[in-house]
C-alpha cells in the first residue's frame, strides 16, 4: 500500500524564502568551519593510504578454515556450491585418507568476478569451513584468472590476523599451513 505523506503547508516565514535561505547558510557554514578548523575530524578517509575500518562481520573475501592438523575443514559436500546464487563456486572431491571422514576437497575455486558476496555459502556450510571474515575488500589483479581464489589462496591466512577467534588460533598458520597440506598429500595445482 502506498503511504501518502501529507506535507505541512509552508507558513509565511518559510514562504519568504530569505529566512530559510539564511538557515541553510548557517548549516553549510557550520560544516565549512568544521572542515577548516577541525580538518582531522572530517569523515573522509584519504583512501589508498588510509584504509577504512572493516569489521569482521563484513562479508569480505572468503577463507577456508583449517583443522588443528592443517587440513581444510571442508568435506566437499557441495552445499555452498548449491547455495551460491551466482554459481561461482567449483568443487572437486576426492576420497579422504582419514577413515572418519568420507571425502576431502581436491579443488575449491571461488570466482570473485562472479561472486555477489551474499554470504549464502557461509550460511550453507555444515562444518563451518567457509568464512568471509578476512576483511579483505580490495580485489585488484592483472588477469581474470587471478581473480579465481583456489584452495591455496583460500587456506593461506595467518592466525595472527584473527586474534579474537579461538578456532583460527588452533590452525598452524602461515608457512606451516603449506607444510601441513604437503604432509596431508594435497599438492595444489594451478
Amino acid at each position, binding site marked *: 500500500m502506498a503511504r501518502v505523506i501529507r506535507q505541512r503547508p509552508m507558513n509565511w516565514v518559510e514562504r519568504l524564502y530569505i529566512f530559510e535561505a539564511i538557515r*541553510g547558510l548557517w548549516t*553549510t557554514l557550520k*560544516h*565549512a568551519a568544521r*572542515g577548516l578548523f577541525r580538518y582531522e575530524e572530517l569523515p573522509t578517509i584519504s583512501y589508498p593510504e588510509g584504509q577504512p575500518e572493516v569489521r569482521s562481520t563484513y562479508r569480505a573475501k572468503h577463507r577456508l578454515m583449517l583443522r588443528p592438523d592443517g587440513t581444510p575443514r571442508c568435506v566437499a559436500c557441495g552445499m555452498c556450491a548449491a547455495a551460491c546464487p551466482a554459481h561461482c563456486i567449483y568443487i572437486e572431491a576426492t576420497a579422504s585418507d582419514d577413515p572418519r571422514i568420507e571425502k576431502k576437497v581436491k579443488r575449491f575455486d571461488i570466482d570473485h568476478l562472479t561472486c555477489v558476496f551474499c554470504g549464502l555459502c557461509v550460511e550453507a556450510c555444515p562444518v563451518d569451513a567457509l568464512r568471509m571474515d578476512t576483511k579483505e575488500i580490495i580485489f585488484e589483479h592483472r588477469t581474470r584468472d587471478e581473480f579465481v581464489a583456489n584452495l591455496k589462496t583460500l587456506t593461506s591466512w595467518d592466525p595472527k590476523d584473527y586474534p579474537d577467534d579461538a578456532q583460527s588460533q588452533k590452525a598452524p598458520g602461515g608457512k606451516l599451513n603449506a607444510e601441513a597440506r604437503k604432509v596431508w598429500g594435497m599438492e595444489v595445482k594451478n
Partner: protein
Amino acid sequence: MDIIESKTWVEWLITIAKFGFCFVPVLYILLLIPMERRGAGFMQDRQGPNRSYIKVPYFGKVRLFGYVQNMCDGTKLFFKEMFAPKGAKKFLYYVAPAIPFAIVFLSPCVIPWFGPMVFEWGGKVVRIAGPIVDSEVGILLLFGFSSLSAYGAVLAGLSSRSKYSYLGSLRTTAMTISYEVCQGLSMMGLLVLAGSFSLTDIVSWQEHHVWGIVAQPVAFFCFLIATIAETGRAPFDVAEGEPELVAGYHTEYGAMQFGLFYMGEYSHICISSLLVATLFLGGYSVPFVTTETIQAHMGGSLAILCWVLAFFALAFLHMIYRYSRKLRASAQSNKMEILQEYKLYKGIGWIAAFVLVCAGIASWMLYNPQVTVVNGVAVNTLGAALGTALIHLLVLLVKSVFFCWVWIWVRWTLPRFRYDHVMHLGWKIILNIAILNLVVTAVVAKLMGGN
C-alpha cells in the same frame, strides 16, 4: 613638461606603481579557485582536491593544501587544443572569451585602494589619490565596465552556432539588464546620502559617518542579491544551468577559451566583492578607528597589524600541530611523507610568527613619526603615508575576501532558481524594494537636512 616637473619622482613612482592594482583580480582568481573547491568540499564534509604536489628536495611532496591543483588545471587547459565548431563565426568565436577577461583589467582602476596619501617630500606637500583614476563618476564607470563583460557571453552565444549557447546568452543578456537596474537603484540611496558619484567620496563619507550597511541595510541586501545575480553564479546561474542548457553560453568552448570564461567569472566576483565592500562596508576604512588616529599612532597601528598577522600564523601552526599529532597516531601509510611536508609549513609558520612579533615590537617602540598640519590638512612623512596605505589596502582586501566567501557560500548552499523565478525576483521584488528604499532615503535625508 610642466606636469612632469610639477611632480616629484616619488609621486610619479607611486602613481605608476598603483597600476599594479590592475592585476589584483587576476591574483584573486588564484585565491578564489582553491577557496571555492575546498570550501565546497568542506561544506559537503569532503576534503576537496588536495592530491597534486610539487617535489621539493628535502620536504618531499609539497601539496600546499591543494593550491597546486590550480597550476595543474591551468596547465591542462593551456595545452589542450583550441577548436571552433563547424559553422561558427570564427572571429567572434575566438574574440568572445577575451572580452570578460580584458574588462577585468579596467575595473580596478576606479576602486579606491587606500585613503588619499598626503605627505611631505622635498619641501612640497604631495597628495596621491586612492584609485588609479580618481574619477568624479567612478561608480558609473565601474558599472559600465562590469556590464561590458556581458558582451563576452552574448558574442559567444551568437557566434558558436549552437542552440544551447544561444539560449544561454539570451538568458545572460536578460539577466544582466534586469539586475543592472536593481543594482543601480539599490545603490542610489547611498549615493544620495554621500552626495557624490565618486567612490573616494563615498568611502570617506562612510568613514566619517556610518558604514553603508548600517545606513542602508535594505539596500545592502538588494545590492548583494543583484550583484550575485549579475555575476551569473548560483543560485542565479540559469544562463549555464546544466539540466536545461548543457553549459549555457560556453557550451562549445574548450581549452583555454573556456579557461578565460572561467577566469573572467572569478575576476567578476572579485570586482563585485570589492564594490560591495567599498560601497557598504566602508571600503578601506578601519572599523571604529579614524584614519587620523591611525596616522597619529602609526607605530602602534603597524604593531597591532603585525600582531594580528602573528596571531593568524600561530593559529595556523596550532592547526598544523594538532593535525600532525592525529596523523602520527593514525595508520595512514603515507603519514611520514605528509609529516615531512608539514615540516615546511611549521618552519614557515614559526619564522613568520617570530618576524611579525619582532616587527610589531620594533615599530611600536621605534617608529613614531610626527604629523605636521599644513593649511588644516594633516601631512605625514612618506613612511607614515605608506604605512597607512598598507593598512587600508589590507583592510579592503580582507573585506572583499569575506564577500568572495559569501559568493562561494551562497553558491554551495542554495539551489538554482527557475528562470521565471529569477525574473520575478528581479523585476517584481528587488526593484520595488530598491525604489521604495530610494524614496524613503531621499525623504529622510531631506528632512534630516543632509545634502
